[in-house]
Every structure is written in C-alpha cells, then in structure tokens.
C-alpha cells in the first residue's frame, strides 16, 4: 500500500459516494418539477390539483434532503484533483479545467440560486415564476452532468488537444464538447439517473401502498407510481440504446476495457459474448460491438503486446474480475429495473384504473430502489477501473498523475476522515429519508390565505 493506492481508494470512495446522490438530484428534480407543472396547469384552469401539490411537496422534501448531500460531497470532487492528483492537474488543466469552469458558471450557479428561490419562494413569488425557478434549477443539474461527463469522456478519449512541453493544450473546444465518447456517455448516464430516480419513486410509492392498503391516500401513490413507471421505462430504453453506442465506441477507443469486460484473451473474429465464465454465445460480442458478427474484437494479451511496443513495458491490463463482473451486474440489475417498470405499466394500465395494485407487486416495487443504484455504481466501476492504468488514455498513466508532495500518512488520514464522516452522514440521510417516507405527505392547510407573518415562513424548510 503506498500513497498512490490510497489516493485511488480515496477517489473511488468519495466519487462513488457522491454518485449515490447525484442521480436522485438529476432525475427526482425533473420528476418534482413535472408534478408541480401538472399541479400548476390543473389549478390554473380551476381544476382540483390538491393531490398533485401534496405529491410535489412530499417528493420535494425527499429531493431536498438528498440534494444537500449531493452538493456537499461535490465540493470534494473539485478539490481532489489538485490535492491528490497534482501531476494530473498540471498535465490536463488547460483542457480539462474549461468544462469544469463551465460547469460552475453555467450550471451550478443556476442550480443553487434558483433552488434557493424555489425553497423559500412558495408564498413570495407568483406561481408561474416559482415553477420556472424549479425548472431553472433542474436544468442546471442536468447541464452540470453534461459538462462533467464531457471532461470525464476526454480522459477516455482525448480529442481537440496537442501536447506541448509535457502539458496537454486545448486546440479545439468544440471537439472537446462534442467528443463522440461524451455524446454517447451523457445520455447514457443521465438516462441512468432517471432510472434510479424513477426506481426511487416506484419504491416509495410501493411502500406507501403496502402501508395504506386501498384506503387513505392510495390514489395519491397510484399517481406517483404511474408517473415513475413511465419515466423509468422510457429512460430504460435510452440507457440500452446509448449503452450499445458506448460498446461500439469502446471497440475503437478503449479496446482493453472491452476485452477485459468480456475476458477476451486474443484478437478474435466473430468474438463470442461470455454470459458468465464458461457460457458463451458465439459471434454475439462482435455483433454487439461492431454490428457485424464476423468483426474482429481485440483481445487483452494482444493489446498488451501492442501497448508495450508503443508505450514501453508496463502492465496495461485493468483489474479483470472487477471489470468483468461490474459489466454483468450493471446489465442485469439495470434490465431488471426496467422490466419491473414495464410489468408495472401493464398492471396499472388504463383498463385497470380502478383495480387495486396487487400486493406482491407493491412488494417488488421496493426493490426498484437498490437495483438501479447498484447498476449505476457498477457502470462507473466498469468505466473508470476499466480505464486503468491510464488517467488519460494513451497519454498519462495513473502512477504518474499522483501528487508527489503528499505523504502516505496525509492520504491515509484524509481517507479515514472522509470515510468516517461519509458513513455517519449516510446513516443520517437514510434515517431522515425513511422518517419522512413513513410520515407521508403533510395534510393540506384548510385556510390557504397567507397573512403577512406567514408569508415570511418558508414552506419547505426551517
């Protein structure tokens, strides 16, 4: 164990942890904004939209509990490049820093400022403006995903740059922002976030339906369940389609990752897809990765030989079991979630509008929270561990990226500190969310006319 290993662990722990909250921020934000929009449109025409308002506030509160964690753990991410990976930062800053600066200026300001207005603006702003504030915040969240993923894509497939004096130099911003890797990865990750958020709402709705039976506010949960099922199913199709696109790009841009994900040893024409070790479907990998059953897919041993010849002797193979299994976990857990949502759409179809949801399905719904979360984390493990030993594919190795002046003890101490604090906060967040889910939505006030005093009361906080 040296400082490099611990710095990698620190990046893994803090990034995976950060990404537990990000998908909910991205997807649940849109879901809540959709609910509030439905409420706004319904009530503007004089209709009864009370249930939509209750759902907006209920899921809005869960969204905010989660949002806080996403924001504070995001700070670590931006500092970490400089703290633990100073050599990497010096090498890539000219290119990699631009999307990060864009993310802050164009996305984070929008997100944070307008979310503050939304939280405190319920009684202060006209309804239309208040709704627009939430949409602005949500657009900010989604935009931030684009910029950070464009930066991340550049590490896997560097474009629009030249290396001068040991530092990468940007030559074409447009190439960086329209990197083919980014254009495949952004919809894949964002749609994945919608699957996670949809799964969260499905799980919460299923749990509430189990608790309340057909009485109480069961109609409320049917509305949120339907909405989330639709969102999850559509997002699931996008995830699958863009995943296919990503696999084809891997074959061209990161052949080692693809070979490791399949355990493919040698360059093979008509490469088989390995379902689990020992069970193979002939030609399927070539078909998936190139849309041609006879296409050649490079194998690890041959890539290793070629890399050693062009980059010098080193081990260019990533951690095989992690890459291999995370690929399968991602697919199976993700597909299961989407299958669950399609089944749910069938069970709640229009003709069964009045029928009670079967209890066995309500129980299954609860699984929709952990399944896609595990899938999306596995996806990141595949993507980033599969990139090793490079930080920037073909340009900079991980071992050469770490901060030279930071000692083993310093990395160990901060790793322990983050892990400890993150553990405590995860527990607190889980307890808070569970408590609010158990408590259910607040009853609507009977007397809606706000006095001057009440106008100062933020509705959702404090």
């Amino acid at each position: 164990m040296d400082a490099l290993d611990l710095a990698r662990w620190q990046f893994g722990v803090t990034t995976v942890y950060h990404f537990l909250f990000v998908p909910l921020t991205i997807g649940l934000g849109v879901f809540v904004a959709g609910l509030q929009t439905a409420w706004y449109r319904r009530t503007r025409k004089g209709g009864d939209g009370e249930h939509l308002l209750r759902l907006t506030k209920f899921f809005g509160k869960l969204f905010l509990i989660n949002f806080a964690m996403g924001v504070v753990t995001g700070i670590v991410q931006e500092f970490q490049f400089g703290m633990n990976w100073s050599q990497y930062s010096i090498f890539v800053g000219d290119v990699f820093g631009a999307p990060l600066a864009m993310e802050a200026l164009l996305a984070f300001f929008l997100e944070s400022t307008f979310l503050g207005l939304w939280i405190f603006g319920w009684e202060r702003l006209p309804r239309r403006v208040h709704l627009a504030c939430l949409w602005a915040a949500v657009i900010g969240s989604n935009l931030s995903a684009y910029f950070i993923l464009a930066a991340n894509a550049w590490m896997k497939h560097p474009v629009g740059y030249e290396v001068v004096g040991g530092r990468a130099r940007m030559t074409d911003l447009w190439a960086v922002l329209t990197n083919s890797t980014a254009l495949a990865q952004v919809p894949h990750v964002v749609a994945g976030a919608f699957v996670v958020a949809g799964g969260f709402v499905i799980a919460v709705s299923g749990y509430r339906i189990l608790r309340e039976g057909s009485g109480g506010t069961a109609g409320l949960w049917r509305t949120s369940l339907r909405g989330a099922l639709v969102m999850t199913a559509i997002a699931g199709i996008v995830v699958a389609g863009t995943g296919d696109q990503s696999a084809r790009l891997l074959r061209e841009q990161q052949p080692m990752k693809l070979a490791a994900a399949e355990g493919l040893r040698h360059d093979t024409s008509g490469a088989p897809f390995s379902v689990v070790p020992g069970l193979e479907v002939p030609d399927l990998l070539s078909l998936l990765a190139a849309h041609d059953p006879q296409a050649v897919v490079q194998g690890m041993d041959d890539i290793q030989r070629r890399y050693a010849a062009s980059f010098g002797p080193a081990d260019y193979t990533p951690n095989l079991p992690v890459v291999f299994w995370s690929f399968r976990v991602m697919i199976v857990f993700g597909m299961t979630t989407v299958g669950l949502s399609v089944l749910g759409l069938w069970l709640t179809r229009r003709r069964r509008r009045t029928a009670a949801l079967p209890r066995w399905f309500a129980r299954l719904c609860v699984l929709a929270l952990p399944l896609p979360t595990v899938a999306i984390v596995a996806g990141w493990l595949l993507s980033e561990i599969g990139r090793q030993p490079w930080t920037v594919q073909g340009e900079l190795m991980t071992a050469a990226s770490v901060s030279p002046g930071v000692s083993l003890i310093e990395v160990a101490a901060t790793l322990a500190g983050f892990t400890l604090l993150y553990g405590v906060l995860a527990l607190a967040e889980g307890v808070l969310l569970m408590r609010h889910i158990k408590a259910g939505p607040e009853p609507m006030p009977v007397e809606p006319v706000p006095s001057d005093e009440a106008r100062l009361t933020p509705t959702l906080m404090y």
Partner: protein
Amino acid sequence: MTLTTFWFIVIAFLWTGYFVLEGFDFGVGALLPLLSRSDADRRQVITTIGPVWDGNEVWLITAVGAMFAAFPAWYAHMLSGFYLPLFLVIIGLIVRGVGLEWRGKVTSRRELALCDAGIVAGSVIPAFLWGAIFGHMLYGTAAAAAVGGALSLTMATLHGAVFVALRTTGPVRARARRAALLVSAGAVPLAAVALPSLPGSSALTVPDWSASPFLWASALAAMATLASGTALIWRRREGWAFAATAGAIVFTTATLFGALWPAPMPGITVMEAASAPYTLTVLTWLGVIALPGVIAYQAWTYWVFRRRVSARSE
C-alpha cells in the same frame, strides 16, 4: 494588459465575490449561538441566509474551477500544498451544508442541536482557515497563517453580524448590532496591525511592496472602510455599514492578490502557471457571457428576499 494578467484579475474577482458573499454566511453561522436565546431566534438568524448561502458557495467552486482552467500549476500546487488545511475546510463546508439543509427536517431537539453545531463549526473553521491559507501562501510562516486566519475570521464575523442587523427585526437585530461592535473591537486593531505590517514581513514572494502604490492604497482603503463600518453600525446605519464591511473585504482581498502577483507560490509565477492563449480566450468569452447573467439573477434573489426577517412564535 495580457490575457494572463486579465485572468489573474478574474481569479481575484471570483475569490473576492466568494469572500464577500460567503463571508457573511460564515459570520452568521459563527454568531448563531450568540445571537439567539430560543429556537425561534435561531430560525430567524438562519433564515437570513437560508435562500442564498448555497448560491454564495458556488463562487468558491467557480473560483477554484477557474484556477484549474486558467492556472493549472497554481491550482495543483496550492491544493496539494495546503493538503490538510483544505481537507478541514471541506469537512467544515460539508457539515455546515448538511446542517443548514437538514435543520428544518429533523424532529428532535438533540438533532437540531447537532445541526446547529455543524453550522457553527463549519462556519468558524473555514472562515479561519481561508485567511490562514492565504497568509501562509504569502509569507510561508506559521505566524502569518495565524494572523491571516484571525483576520479573516474576525472580518467575516463582523460582516455577518452587520448582515443580521440589516436583515432582521426585534431583539435579534439589537443583539447583532452589539455583536458587531464587540467583534469590530477585535477586527479593527487586527487589520490595523496586519495590513500595513505586510511589507515588513515580506520575505518570500512580495518583490517590493513600497514600490507599489496600488497595494498601499488598497490596504489603506481596507482599513478605512473597516473602521467606517464600525462607526456606521454604531450609528445604526445598517445598510451603509454592510456596504462598508463588504468594501473592507473587497479591498483586503485586492491587497492580498496584489501581493500574490506575480508569484503566488514559491517557485511558481503566474506566467508559467497559465494555460495557453487559446484556452484563456475561450474562458474569457465564457466569463463575458455568463458572469453578468449570474450576477443579475443572484442580485434578483436578494431583491426577492429583501424584507427583514421577523421572529415568529409558531
């Protein structure tokens, strides 16, 4: 003016925005226990920054992100060089952030107290450490770090006290005014010692302070605005007092970055640390397009929440 110089000024501007805006957030957090006698008081104090603190913190994210993009080597050396202090800053910002967001969602008194403890610690620690980090960056001594930290903590606290006085009614407002006067008794002498004594201790990076009239003018303006802030809060001119404490932070930060030019850290000059002209040009367009919009909608937020926050007994 070269692009590099221009971007050094932009970085200074972003840090200034951060120190002015999150400065009062930190002050409000640090003073939370002193300004409140009850839960309602605490809620009143926190509500003054509730809608804006998160947007204010993005100034830090932007300043650091812009350093990464425009001066990668400075970013890398600063962040890896101040490793443990920055770790503590981050921990502070984390516990403060969740404290602020969660305090309205917890149920028991004990949890509320935990949130408030997070807010206080998460305000005091970063407010001190930012001054310490930049003090150390300038002079490389523990003494400079201690003085810098004390100065940034007291100035942020004063700024926050004036902000609460400006934004509240009732007993909290009166307490905030008294707190501001009390803190300024520490901040003003500290600034009077620290700011002009900077040239004397400039062993490391500052080339020739006395040759730079800009730095002297800026340091003097910082002291003058700080002192006038005290006088104005004494005379209950809260709006003007806030402008004065904000001005003091602006001038102090300007002095600081003036002194950091052109070698912000040992062995690193701004010219060597800078990105290539293409990137700096791209960033310039980005800033020109985005920053005015950001400033406009953040200003609008303050306009929306301009009304004083009163105590509520719910």
